[in-house]
């Protein structure tokens, strides 16, 4: 019975997140347009795009293999599976101890499936895009993992029920440590995560694999019709999920206790509040970043990750670790 409810909840979450993430796509486009004194498309434009793409003919290149058609389906399936482990204002539906690794794995897998799909197309544009995406993929996860594991390790000292799971953020959060050192460390990690988020959804500096003007859409060059639609949806969900991770680590507070709500109503209110926070985080990391920065070259981006972001993450993690040792009170 429990499994049944969880499954129903999972489907509802999936429907909601698909809606919210596509809606955010519309808001984002509107906001960026306004920043450049344009009118911009209507708010529901991503839905029209999606429906139109689904209706279009999907062209399979002659040199493509079976995986070309399979990759978008698998990418969407992975992003849906990822929702089961994503903190959305309440504990993840299928969360268990150690599910952080599963979360990172599935999140990376979506990127990897994009790469595999692109490689399978046989197009040289997509190949180059795929290589770039692979390089970025390898570079960006290290700082994020270090930060995430450090935060989760520090949270363990509060005595959480399920160590190293996404649910722990709702039992205790990192700000509760309260010491100045941990505060500084957390702020550094927050910066790292905002940059990571921008690279995860490939905007601004990190719009490298798709690089419209340079590589003619790169990884997605050969995709059309419903296959492209599936990828677009998977990407939108992935953006939402990645932002949810940042929100869960740094801004996990819910409002249901203040309103005196619990049970299903509480969950719904928290989900809505969580969506607002996700939109706020995405506004910083996506819309603003996209509007004010241009693309980097791939070498510059890799340099940025290994010589700026990873050291920042190490410093943040070290500050949190030194704080745990209690050397400096």
């Amino acid at each position, binding site marked *: 019975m429990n499994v049944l409810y969880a499954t129903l909840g999972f489907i509802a979450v999936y429907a909601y997140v698909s809606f919210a993430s596509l809606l955010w796509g519309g808001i984002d486009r509107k906001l960026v347009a306004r920043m450049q004194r344009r009118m911009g498309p209507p708010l529901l434009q991503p839905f029209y795009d999606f429906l139109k793409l689904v209706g279009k003919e999907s062209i399979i290149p002659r040199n493509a*293999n*079976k995986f070309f058609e399979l990759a978008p389906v698998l990418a969407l399936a992975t992003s849906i599976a990822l929702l089961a482990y994503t903190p959305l204002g309440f504990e993840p539906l299928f969360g268990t101890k150690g599910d952080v690794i*599963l979360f990172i794995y599935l999140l990376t897998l979506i990127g990897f499936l994009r790469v595999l799909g692109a*490689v399978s197309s*046989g*197009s040289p544009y997509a190949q180059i895009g795929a290589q770039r995406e*692979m390089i970025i993929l390898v570079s960006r996860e290290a700082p994020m993992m270090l930060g995430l594991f450090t935060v989760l390790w520090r949270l363990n000292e509060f005595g959480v029920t399920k160590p190293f799971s996404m649910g722990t953020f709702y039992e205790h959060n990192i700000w509760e440590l309260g010491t100045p050192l941990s505060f500084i460390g957390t702020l550094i990690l927050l910066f790292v995560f905002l940059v990571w988020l921008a690279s995860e959804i490939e905007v601004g500096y990190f719009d490298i694999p798709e690089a419209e003007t340079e590589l003619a859409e790169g990884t997605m060059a050969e995709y059309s019709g419903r296959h492209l639609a599936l990828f677009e949806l998977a990407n939108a969900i992935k953006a939402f999920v990645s932002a949810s991770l940042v929100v869960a680590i740094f801004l996990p507070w819910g409002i249901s206790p203040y309103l005196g709500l619990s049970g299903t109503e509480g969950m719904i209110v928290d989900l809505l509040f969580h969506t607002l926070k996700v939109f706020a985080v995405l506004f910083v990391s996506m819309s603003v970043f996209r509007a004010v920065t241009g693309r980097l070259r791939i070498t510059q981006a890799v340099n940025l990750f290994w010589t700026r972001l990873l050291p920042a993450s190490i410093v943040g993690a070290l500050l949190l670790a030194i704080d745990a040792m209690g050397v400096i009170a």
Partner: protein
Amino acid sequence: MMLPYLITIPLFGAFALPIVSLAGRKARELWAILVSALTLGVATEVFRTVWKSGEVMVYTLGAESPLGQGVDFPIRIVWEVDLLGAIVALMIAFIAFVAILYSTEYMRHDTGLEKYYALILLLEVGMLGIAITGDLFNFYVFLEIMSIASYALVAFRNDTWEGIEAGIKYMFAGSLASAFILLGIALLYGQYGTLTMAYLAKQIAANPTFTAKVALGLIAGGLLFKSGAVPVHMWLADAHPAAPSSISAMLSGLVIKIGGTYALARLAFSVYGMGINLRTLGWIIIFFACLTLIVGNAMAIVQTDMKRLFAFSSVGQIGYILLGIGIGLAAYGSDVGEVALAGAIYHTVNHALMKALLFLVAGAVIHQLGTKNLNELSGIARKMPVTSFAFLVGAAAIIGLPPLNGFASKWLIYESSALFNPFLAAIAVIGTAFCTAAYIRVLFTFFGRPSEKVMNAKEPGKAMLVPMMILVLAIILMGLFPWAISEKVMIPAAKMLENVGTYVSAVLGGA
């Protein structure tokens, strides 16, 4: 008692093969398949019996009891199967069956096939013998049966230069390693006057001498050679690419583990378990394991020959197994050691499945395209989707991606090494990173833009695809129930291996 049939059936099959093959090619192939299928049935039965009862199965050749009349020490050859031996025997029989099934189509263009099938069955006999024997000299004999059969099989295509070259290299170095092992056994016999492992364990425990340690050094050195640990891995990188792919699958999946890591674990735990400082031995093995992990996986990245890449990857994976065994020895008696040992056993089985699959895939590619140079193989997935899918599964499993079997076994090894010494876990993770890089490179080649050469390719026939699919199925099924398998089979096997007392008393009967 099905145990004797584990040896007699394939041995009879091998010896009868020249006569059967007088009846023609079909009869020969059918006979080989039938014999290996029967062996698989017996191995399954033995495994079921040992697993159900949880006791060590003992069989004495020639009498009811291993003990001589009126004396309280064993004088006969005993076969002794604990859960680890049973798992390994099942694994051997399974992979051998799959490889023989695969050979029927793969080897069709070669001549002298009555010798081929006889040798492959002898190889199976040798490995099964090592898995079940409880006698040190008997172990040596089976080791030589296995080794000589594999020398001959590596050089089976004797009209190619690389087959002969690899065969000679393997034989010269391998004979030397076997000689070390024999010398070690001779020293042990001279010192203690017995060759029964269980009784020897008791004797060494009662009187640990310097000779015993020298013998251990000699035997362990020989076994590390046979397993392809790093300073002595060079034969492997030549032998695996040169052998026919069905043989590479057995060499990489089985021979290096049975004649190497399994025998090492058996020797270290069951024979020397009570007599020497296991911590020292453990750290020595860990040292070689770390070297093997890094060198094997790193060398895999730079290869352009597909089978050579898989061969180096086998070296790298042996590093994980050795790491598990090493930690199991160094942390003997603790939970960490037990988990590491269970991880090593689990990884042995998993790696046998996935490396056999990968070599069968390589064989299919070579069979259809006539090249194993990765630079020429771009875009196979377009023309050989099933083979490419099999490769995808095998590669994902060997990297250790969660829905497949490689994840759980590697996880056990990571977890235990992190608890034992975080530095070792870091080395293991670096090894995996190299391994991932190597396989992703091949994956990109397979899925890329089809080259001219590839455009004329097509899928191999059923006799080659079915064995691959069997292995894919096994990998996926084992990947779905990793913790159940680990709890119910691998941890008990590790416990049984650690518990030397039962191994000894099963033969000596408490004497």
